[in-house]
């Protein structure tokens, strides 16, 4: 049931994924996934746990090596062995489910490290830039605090700031609110919504159906390693074509209440 999405070479696509396969031992977690994301588009990937959504996201910046298939960031093929993956990763922001802030560094240093060590900015430039990003996520006051001194929501916002500081062409969010207490989810979603409104190209793996519906431009429903259905949120959430999508959404609404925001 792989998507028949045609791989186009149009420049307006920021990322294109073609026929992606990944196997862990005997289990095939990605069975030929293809899609593309346009400049400024926010794509939500939804679906049951263990269907390869996170693996797919990690394949895009090759934190996980795909077995087969090709991925492009604009006109550069990420999956080409000759591509300098470290150069590519600088252009792709990645936000982890459990934040992964560097435990021995303050919030400021977390944001600054990539700028000084990877982008080779001077400490002064890096500090200015880092403070701009911390201000953007509302944490300028907490710049000198260590991760353990911040709440989960604050940590996730720092990690978003850390990714944004690198000036990414694409932001990948891997269930950014799943590890948060319910009352902290809002502040993170708020930052992400602002980002989408500013026109950041992003792919968000999420269980927050409200967010997917109201913020994202496109939704992919994935199950068992394939894309079951893809379309604008209105279509997916109100008139899903596939029975599996319907079942999933009704189960979600049983669990979490209404899916509309």
């Amino acid at each position: 049931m792989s998507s028949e999405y045609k791989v186009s070479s149009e420049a307006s696509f920021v990322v294109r994924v073609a026929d992606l396969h990944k196997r862990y031992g005997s289990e095939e977690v990605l069975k030929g996934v293809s899609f593309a994301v346009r400049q400024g588009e926010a794509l939500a990937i939804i679906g049951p746990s263990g269907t390869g959504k996170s693996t797919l996201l990690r394949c895009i910046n090759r934190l996980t090596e795909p077995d087969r298939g090709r991925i492009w960031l604009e006109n550069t093929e990420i999956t080409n062995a000759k591509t300098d993956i470290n150069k590519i990763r600088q252009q792709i922001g990645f936000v982890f489910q459990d934040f992964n802030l560097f435990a021995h560094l303050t919030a400021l240093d977390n944001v600054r490290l990539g700028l000084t060590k990877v982008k080779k900015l001077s400490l002064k430039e890096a500090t200015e830039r880092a403070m701009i990003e911390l201000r953007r996520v509302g944490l300028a006051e907490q710049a000198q605090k260590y991760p353990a001194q911040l709440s989960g929501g604050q940590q996730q916002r720092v990690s978003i700031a850390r990714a944004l500081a690198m000036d990414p062409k694409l932001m990948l969010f891997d269930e950014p609110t799943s590890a948060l207490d319910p009352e902290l989810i809002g502040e993170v979603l708020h930052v992400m919504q602002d980002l989408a409104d500013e026109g950041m190209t992003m792919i968000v793996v999420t269980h927050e159906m409200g967010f997917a519906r109201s913020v994202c431009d496109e939704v992919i429903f994935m199950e068992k390693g394939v894309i079951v259905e893809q379309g604008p949120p209105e279509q997916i959430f109100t008139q899903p074509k596939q029975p599996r999508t319907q079942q999933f959404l009704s189960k979600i609404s049983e669990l979490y209440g209404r899916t509309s925001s």
Partner: protein
Amino acid sequence: MQRLEKLELIWQSLPLLGEGVLVTMTLTISLLGVGLLLGIPVALGQAYGPRPVRLLMSSYERFFRAMPILVLLIVCFYGLGFWGIYVPAFGTAVVVFGLHSSAYQSQIFRGAIQAIKEGQLLAARALGMSRLQAIRYIVLPQALRLSLPGWSNEYSGVLKDTSFVFAIGVTELTRQGWQIAMRTREIFLVFITVAVIYLILTYLGTWLLERIERRLSVPGLAGQRREEHGRVI
């Protein structure tokens, strides 16, 4: 009267014992330095190296941990003599003890590396850091901090082990005490003094390391646990 004489004997022995302390401490600090310089690459090789490197580092570590220090000392010092290579005793001691300690220190350090969450390295790679950069800026600073309590143990351990070096003719604290005891026959008194000195040295060293540990401490760093999934990059 006799008690006064004994006090005087201890007082008069202090300069010689001081010489012994200097040798013991120079040796201890040098060997810990050598052990650290070698132990970190061994641990990194074991944790992140390709399979042949991991095997090599593991056999290195096992070899030196299995070898009694006295055997190593004698083999290196006298063994090299058979080949016409004459190395200074103190240098041999530093190198041999350093190799031995590097095996133990690599264990301490490897434990610390394993206590670092996998996600730390992932996040660094996701920023575009190379493996080496990620290890240097993320793994090392965290692992070194987590290793400090282990190094306290290693310090007090090797401090005592250094008394073996008289086998190759380096006169350290225990031997100085022995020489005084042989001259005066005040075995008990002299060795009580030596014991007190070792106690002070151990206490001072661990106190210093604790201070460093507190100085470098970062909230929440000690409480981390390893993630369950295996090596990712």
